[in-house]
């Protein structure tokens, strides 16, 4: 009986938590028009979130692409169709690996930075101080960061895919000797607009989700050292699970 009770209770708790996130999301959305009037704040945050993650995204993109080139070549060689490597790598990167891996890295780099920044602002009364100065911290601090993250994430995913394709080309064409012409032409033939769209939609959804989770956790962090640490950890864990969950849903929806 106790187990059932506890399960029921934790289900209720998580529903309440979800409701709180949704309400917070609407608060952010309502404040977006006002924030767009001060676009310099958003641009600063795009730069902040994007530039923070750029190096790690580029490096990871290169390695993921190289692994893809290696694995793909091994597999395709068995069927004697190495030329399809270009198409296989591009589709995989644009539709799946680009958005998903970028989102996971983004949550780990920019998401944690956002959450701990907001958490520390809460812990050191900076958010209360703003409210006392009649400045709404949602409009001044939270929504610009949310928008910045949501805009930066698709851009990062695009960069990731681009560099990934270069990495696959590096291994496949330069080292394994796949014909350069057929690598690129197979890619052009094999990737549809629908694949690109799927990648774009996914990276936008993941960007919104990761940024929302980060600012929500940071803004609601318990104002102690332990609380900020917990908020940071929860940002990464929740983001990862949510991204993979939405990835499945979106993939199914695009079939």
């Amino acid at each position, binding site marked *: 009986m106790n187990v059932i009770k506890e399960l029921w209770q934790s289900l209720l708790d998580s529903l309440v938590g979800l409701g709180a996130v949704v309400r917070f999301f609407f608060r952010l959305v309502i404040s977006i028009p006002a924030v767009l009037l001060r676009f310099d704040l958003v641009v600063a945050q795009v730069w902040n979130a994007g530039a923070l993650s750029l190096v790690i995204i580029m490096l990871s993109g290169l390695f993921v692409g190289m692994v893809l080139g290696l694995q793909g070549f091994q597999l395709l060689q068995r069927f004697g169709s190495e030329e399809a490597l270009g198409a296989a790598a591009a589709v995989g990167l644009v539709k799946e690996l680009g958005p998903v891996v970028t989102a996971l890295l983004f949550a780990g780099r920019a998401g944690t930075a956002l959450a701990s920044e907001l958490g520390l602002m809460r812990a050191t*009364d900076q958010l*209360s101080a703003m409210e006392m100065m*009649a400045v709404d911290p949602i409009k001044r601090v939270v929504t610009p960061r949310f928008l910045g993250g949501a805009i930066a994430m698709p851009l990062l995913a695009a960069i990731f895919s681009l560099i990934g394709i270069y990495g696959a080309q590096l291994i496949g064409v330069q080292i394994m000797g796949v014909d350069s012409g057929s690598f690129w032409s197979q890619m052009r033939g094999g990737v549809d607009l629908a694949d690109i769209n799927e990648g774009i939609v996914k990276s936008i959804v993941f960007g919104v989700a990761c940024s929302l989770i980060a600012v929500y956790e940071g803004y609601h962090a318990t104002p102690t050292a332990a609380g900020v640490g917990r908020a940071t950890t929860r940002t990464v864990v929740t983001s990862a699970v949510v991204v993979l969950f939405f990835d499945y849903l979106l993939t199914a929806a695009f079939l």
Partner: protein
Amino acid sequence: MSGRPIFDGLTMNIQRAGVTAVMGPSGTGKTTLLRLITGQVHADSGTIEVAGQDMRTLKRADLYKLRRRMGMLFQNGALLTDLSVFENVAFPLREHTDLPERLIRQLVLTKLQAVGLRGAADLMPSELSGGMARRVALARAIVMDPELLIYDEPFVGLDPISMGVILRLIRRLNDTLGLTSIVVSHDVKEISTVADKVFLLSGGKVVASGTPQELRSDPSEIVRQFVGGLADGPVPFHYPAPDYFGELLARGEDS
């Protein structure tokens, strides 16, 4: 938010254009009182009027309008850590006005001069000592020329020199700017030198009020304990606990 009431039967009347001190042992809800006065939290019952407006029925926009007439100094200054000293003081001006840069510069430098930190304008908050950070926060609190200035424990953790500086500033700002000041503190000696009127809170009530001199000669036990700094008295030394010997002698029954 269930549990014991923090205030019960509390009545206070704060005079315009004077320095009012609110004192009391730790945990009597002095900070909560400030949050009530500034509308950061709402009372379950009773009314709080600030400048003739009932805080409980005030709409958000009106609350923010009222807060522009208030300045608040937080315990640790609550400076915005990503902005320089100058930009911190300029923050309310930039958020609420469209003043030309030249005028903002003049206003900010005048306020910094008033707290003696014009030379520190280009420093970042992390480069300031505790006392300096509080003085910058004070400059920020007065930059919009408020009518009401609220200090939350302005002396905590300051060395005697910084404390003297802050004390002098409280009095001088109050008199030169024609402010109403509320100082929450438990530093009896310090506050007695600047306050016009003192409220002593304990157990959710005002237990004594009057000028510092009147309070010093108050015969009641709680006032004597607080003003004299006695360890035991109406405010007990011991946190409520079961009988000492009983607990020591009891066998550890998997407590």
